């Protein structure tokens, strides 16, 4: 089968990554502030995401994590601060431009296309990669059909990878929550992004499913070298998967570092963890 499946049999020690701190910065957020009317969602936050790492963003509810992702992919425009993408300060952009530059994401409240099947949802992730014009589409012949089939193959790889073959033709609206999350991940993967933003991908999953999901995230990260920003409330997952963690509270950054550091940080324990995990 595909390369994706192949990697799953690699010995786990095979991947020797350079230390996170040494890698090139993919995206940097500098002094970003965002408010809605009176509500300050984000206050003067700076951090960076390095190529190939898994960067976790954690913090209590309403801390501004989702808003941060929204800023990164252009859905919100911060009032202050800059975002540097691959070394260039980014101008104000529309979300689809962010997408075309290689930023993909999943959503906290699953945002799948409810009326479409799993297959179509994942195919929709390939939108930016398909180019055949209207004329060929109308005929559905020649180039358009070949293109469709070629992308279909890619999508089938993803379906295999996520083990959702059985629901290929099911309209996603009817799927249980956990599977929806998985489909959503598939859709983001289909975009072959450089930076993948995951907003609570494991909320509402049981342990077993979380394990599966963790595996997928690791595989994506290790096999494709995709950089991942991850919001998650399950500390076990965060601590195990991420290379570095940034902690927000009330829109401010209260800690940033490798998991062990963060976990031991008293501010983080007070604001977020409650008891030491």
């Amino acid at each position: 089968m595909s390369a994706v499946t192949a990697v799953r049999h690699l010995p786990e020690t095979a991947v020797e990554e350079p230390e996170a701190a040494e890698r090139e910065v993919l995206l940097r957020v500098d002094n970003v502030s965002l408010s809605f009317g009176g509500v300050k969602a984000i206050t003067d936050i700076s951090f960076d995401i390095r190529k190939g790492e898994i960067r976790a963003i954690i913090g209590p509810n309403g801390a501004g994590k989702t808003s941060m992702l929204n800023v990164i992919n252009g859905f919100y425009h911060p009032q202050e601060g800059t975002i540097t993408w691959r070394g260039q300060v980014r101008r104000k952009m529309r979300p689809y431009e962010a997408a075309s530059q290689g930023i993909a994401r999943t959503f906290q409240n699953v945002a799948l296309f409810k009326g479409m099947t799993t297959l179509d949802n994942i195919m929709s992730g390939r939108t930016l990669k398909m180019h055949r014009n209207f004329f060929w589409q109308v005929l559905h012949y020649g180039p358009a059909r070949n293109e469709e089939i070629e992308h279909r193959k890619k999508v089938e790889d993803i379906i295999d990878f996520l083990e959702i073959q059985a629901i290929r033709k099911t309209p996603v609206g009817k799927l249980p929550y956990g599977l929806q999350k998985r489909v959503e991940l598939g859709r983001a993967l289909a975009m072959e992004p450089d930076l993948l933003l995951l907003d609570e991908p494991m909320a509402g999953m049981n342990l077993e499913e979380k394990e599966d999901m963790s595996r997928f995230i690791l595989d994506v990260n290790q096999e494709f070298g995709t950089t991942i920003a991850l919001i998650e409330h399950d500390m076990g997952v965060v601590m195990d998967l991420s290379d570095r963690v940034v902690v927000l509270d009330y829109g401010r950054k209260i800690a940033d570092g490798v998991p062990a550091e963060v976990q031991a940080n008293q501010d983080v324990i007070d604001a977020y963890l409650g008891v030491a995990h």
Partner: protein
Amino acid sequence: MFYREAGQFKTSYEADQALFPIRQDRIGLGIILAIAFVVIPLTANAFFLTSIMIPFLVFALATIGLNILTGYAGQLSLGTGAFMGVGAYSAYKLTSIFPEANLILVILLSGVFSAGIGVVFGLPSLRIKGLYLAVTTLAAQFFLEWCFIRIPWLYNYNASGAIEVQQRELFGVIATGAAATPLTRYFIVLSIVIALTWLVSNVIRGRIGRQWMMIRDMDIAAELIGVRPLTAKLSAFAVSSYLCGVAGAMMVFFWLGAAEPSAFAISLSFQVLFMAILGGLGSLTGCYMGAAFIWILPVLLRVLLPSLGLSVAAETVQHLTFMIVGALIIFFLITEPHGLARLWRIGKEKLRVWPFPYG
């Protein structure tokens, strides 16, 4: 029992992406086409062709047009009538300016004009959504209707303000005007509608169609995935109005023979909207079912109610028709809110699991 896909394996993605992957469906389609092209022409009388089949096909096409916009791209439109009007007036102007031009070409070209107008009125959809968008399409509806009256050039300065279709030939056969036989008109309409349906189904299962559905299901997410709302929405408006325009042109050329501006009034928009919703938003088969239901049922009621023996006054038949159609609309929506097409699918689903009640 007969509707099983067991034993039919798809061995390629081509096969899986075919329009009708299940053999029984293909056979069913074949039978329907055979009825449409052979049985009906052989058996139907003029009334059936002119007052049932031709309008049904025309409406089916218009419904497909609306369904593209509302069912697939999720943009509610109440301007269908006017877009059909644009098609009709364009076709009328085209044949009067180029009397020698091929009729089919004229009809197909007329859709281009309504596509253009549709795109213009689609522009506000970038900002305005949902029911609020209805206002732009209503503005289109009333403004265009007004133009059809106020711009005499459109109807060649006819005193009556109506457009009257002249006699035109197609491959040597009289195809429009009073002298055209119902059969000729039926064949032309049937062929155009079927061809366009096929082309549209191609668009829908490709990238463009997917973009429309993405915008419909969740426009924000679609944009975050890389769909440009501008192109997606406007292309939906264009394709939708194109089909409506062609339907409008055919409505005048092959069915009514002449039309006043009021033929394209808001009631027409609604009629088509009923068809789309009742048939099932987001389903091409549904368009045919909806058109059949909304168009044919009242006609049949009007024709059949008096022949039930009881001699009722003409207007009572009309009243009863209204009541029955209204009640049936509600009944079907309650039975299956997603339209006749879904009802049909559930029926097939049941067939598949038969004799068990569910699978």
